[in-house]
């Protein structure tokens, strides 16, 4: 391992992570603006021109807010839970190929790495809920982890179709395999299952009952406050970015696009269109009841994903 390689890896990591931190702040602002406009109001306007400085103001406020740790909480686990969440969320970035040849770690088990870390993220949810020792957070943590677990199977199975088409789990190979035509066309069922599973994985709107304000007072993060709560919040947005990145790489041909724009711009354009889809769904769809949500996950999506695998197998044989 020559020094230059190590240096190059460090540069890449610092670059990607810092861009990602900026992204987290500004996508939250972007979300509030989009949902505001969708509901006929303006969204944050006061701080700076059109509220551009709002995210910076929020993060500074979070630094200064008091961090309350409930007396009956299980101290060590209470500290670790948000950090596991952030580590799981941010380190999935390592595998996403931003443009041809540029991804922090070009593992040949790219998809498995992302699935493994999204399983790790459900750890932080359970531990957070259990450690803060209050009814709301315990029940919220339990419910959202059960939901994340049951949709993770559907997500895993839907990606099997993509792997069959591309013949490799390495994300760059998958993008290169899509030169002939994006996988969205042959793998449409898999795309539908994957997108809905991603909504459930990141606890986003139609499936965010355990964290809903009206039901469980923001679920497992009830007892957290200040910076610790922000870390959970960052993990959720990291998950959202990575999953939409994965969707773009697996179904929409990653950085490939007509030549007049460089690869990375295409990639970011597609990712932000997906994130816009997240906000659009949040502003429009009502919330699922918990038993509908779980029943749907098990009864509909797993058979659908399996059917897609069998179908892809048949098509590829002919």
């Amino acid at each position: 391992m020559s020094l230059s390689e190590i240096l190059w890896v460090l540069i890449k990591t610092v670059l990607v992570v810092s861009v990602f931190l900026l992204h987290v702040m500004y996508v939250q602002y972007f979300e509030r603006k989009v949902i505001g406009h969708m509901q006929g109001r303006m969204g944050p306007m006061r701080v700076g021109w059109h509220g551009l400085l709002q995210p910076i103001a929020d993060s500074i406020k979070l630094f200064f807010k008091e961090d309350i740790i409930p007396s009956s909480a299980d101290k060590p686990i209470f500290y670790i839970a948000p950090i596991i969440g952030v580590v799981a969320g941010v380190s999935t970035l390592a595998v996403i190929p931003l443009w041809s040849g540029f991804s922090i770690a070009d593992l040949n088990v790219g998809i498995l790495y992302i699935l493994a870390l999204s399983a790790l993220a459900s750890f932080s949810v359970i531990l957070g809920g259990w450690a803060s020792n209050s009814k709301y957070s315990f029940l919220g943590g339990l419910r959202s982890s059960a939901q994340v677990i049951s949709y993770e199977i559907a997500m895993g199975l839907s990606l099997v179709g993509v792997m069959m088409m591309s013949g490799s789990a390495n994300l760059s190979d998958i993008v290169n395999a899509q030169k002939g035509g994006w996988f969205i066309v042959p793998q449409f069922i898999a795309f539908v299952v994957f997108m809905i599973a991603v909504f459930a994985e990141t606890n986003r709107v139609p499936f965010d009952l355990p964290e809903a304000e009206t039901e469980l007072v923001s679920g497992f993060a009830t007892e957290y406050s200040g910076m610790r709560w922000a870390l959970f919040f960052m993990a959720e947005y990291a998950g959202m970015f990575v999953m939409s990145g994965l969707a773009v790489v697996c179904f929409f041909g990653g950085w490939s696009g007509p030549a007049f724009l460089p690869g990375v711009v295409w990639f970011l354009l597609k990712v932000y269109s997906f994130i816009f889809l997240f906000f659009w769904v949040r502003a429009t769809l009502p919330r699922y009841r918990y038993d509908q949500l779980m029943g749907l996950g098990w009864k509909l999506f797993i058979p659908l994903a399996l059917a897609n695998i069998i179908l892809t197998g048949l098509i590829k044989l002919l």
Partner: protein
Amino acid sequence: MHVVFVYKTTTMPGTYIPSDYLSVAVIIIFAALIGLGAIAAGLLVRPRRPYARKLMPYESGNPPVGEPRYRFSVKFYIVAMLFVVFDVEAVFLYPWAVAYDKLGIFGFVEMMLFIFILLIGYIYVWKKGAFNWE
């Protein structure tokens, strides 16, 4: 002009590929640093005035009643077990999917048998009512 550093080592058995996993280690350390750094920075500037009433678990105002970690329904245990079983099934599907073109007809028939047996288990669990949450 940015330097395109295409770095892809062949992964034949026997050759070691520390470089990729090294960058994974680097990003994990970075993520941990972000988490700890944010909290540590907060600790310095944050006011600390804990008093009993503030440290009680949040019950939307009224004092907490009942034991928080009560015995939850067995449905969560069943979901966890089903997850373990079906995830291990997905694990078997991954290598098959990646090597699908090389296996041809035989590989396909073999995996259909595997999925068929799994579907029987799935139907059994469905009929026994593990999926409907009352």
